[in-house]
């Protein structure tokens, strides 16, 4: 796997860190739509998106891709709670993005259906931000 070529396609100034559990790259300004087109063209499989709270109310998203058994982990941040959806170019992201919205209230722009997946219709998104409060107490 040519990591330099991947960096060039992603148009990022950051560098990969090679670890036992794959290659990791962190870029707060990562163009996730470009990333998706590149990865899909290379035949990569979207493993999942891991999300966690970050500073200033933002959410850190790590996009995990598999290329022939090699794991590529690309981390970035939401911008004012929003990040472009990759589902139009990668159908595998459909349910994953909906679940991230349920858990962290991240808005994925550029897609039509962002209905709750594991929560019920009408539930307030952002389970990890409710911090376990009961339904009627949540913001």
């Amino acid at each position: 796997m040519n990591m330099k070529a991947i960096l060039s396609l992603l148009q990022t100034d950051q560098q990969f860190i090679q670890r036992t559990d794959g290659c990791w790259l962190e870029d707060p300004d990562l163009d996730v739509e470009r990333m998706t087109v590149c990865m899909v063209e290379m035949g990569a499989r979207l493993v999942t998106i891991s999300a966690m709270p970050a500073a200033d109310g933002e959410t850190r998203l790590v996009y995990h891709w598999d290329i022939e058994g090699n794991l590529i982990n690309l981390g970035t941040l939401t911008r004012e709670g929003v990040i472009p959806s990759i589902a139009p170019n990668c159908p595998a992201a459909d349910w994953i993005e909906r679940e991230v919205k349920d858990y962290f209230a991240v808005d994925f722009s550029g897609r039509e259906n962002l209905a709750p997946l594991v929560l019920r219709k009408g539930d307030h998104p952002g389970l990890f931000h409710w911090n376990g409060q009961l339904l009627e107490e949540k913001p």
Partner: protein
Amino acid sequence: MSYTIPIGPYHPALEEPYKIEITCEGEQVRDANLHIGFNFRGIEWLARQRNYVQNIALFERVCGICSNVHTLTYCMAVERLAEIDVPPRARYIRVVVAELERLHSHILWAGIAAHIMGFQTLFMTCFSLRELVMDLLEEISGNRVNYAMNCFGGVNRDIQDVANIMAGVQKFRLRLENQLIPIFTTDPTVRARCSGVGVMTKEQAIAWGALGPTARASGLTQDIRKAVPYAAYDQLEFDIPYKTSGDVLARIIVRVLEMVESCRIIEHALNTMPSGGWKGFVFLDVPPGEAVARVEAPRGEVFYYLASDGSDKPLRVKVRTPSFCNMPTVRLMLQGASLADVPLVQASIDPCYSCTDR
């Protein structure tokens, strides 16, 4: 004129809740819309409230069938972050239990598939074989389900009577090869019911991220045990069965052949299992950082992401189960299918709603 049939959350095929809205033109399915979340327990949120050791018991309960795979993947992620080595014997024991669990899962699924086909004698045959596997798991772990075998850096129990486990696996393999494989591969009822039904192409499987036997029935060949070997899989001989027709019959055949391979793996592991230590740690310090781990579960790749801030509780544990990836593909398989095939097609991916919802 099209019409929509809502099925579920309680439905005729499987005893777990989910809902599917089927839009039909006459008897032909035009589209399907899946709704999940009826088993949602917030396990990822709960994991932040418990310490690392308590979370082993929590993750054992993600799934009632492949419970061992979840604790294995979680322990592997923690071991990677804490830089803990697992003794060779423990690695082999992990393989034996994981493959017995695969046998249990696949034979359970085969029985349910036979039941949905209306082939009740085959259903009974599968479930009698399942008892044999569950007896072996009980002998090793003391439990028929939720085996509590994994801990950080090792396993909780040794395999003491290797000869008895070997005899049980060989007995299972004999009945599998003499009874089940001929029925599932040549019986006209099975072929008529499953051939050409619920097709998913290789291209669709790639785009939608299908995994495990569901993907391998559509021509994909990846298996984490070979692609990224863990435990002792790099020391053991086995093949990865796959088919290219992408229909229900292909999914059946791939799983049946995988059972033969699991028997091979267990026999090889028992024959070559090294002596020595196998115990792990009760407590450990997990440094700050993040790690991921992947394991080939019976339904496909299980993926855990773990983030630590150095405290005794994880900052974040992301659990991605194979059914979560495979379930959206049911929509593709159903488009153009006959309405009567809906239960069989949705069951053909071996869905686990408990896993999917977490």
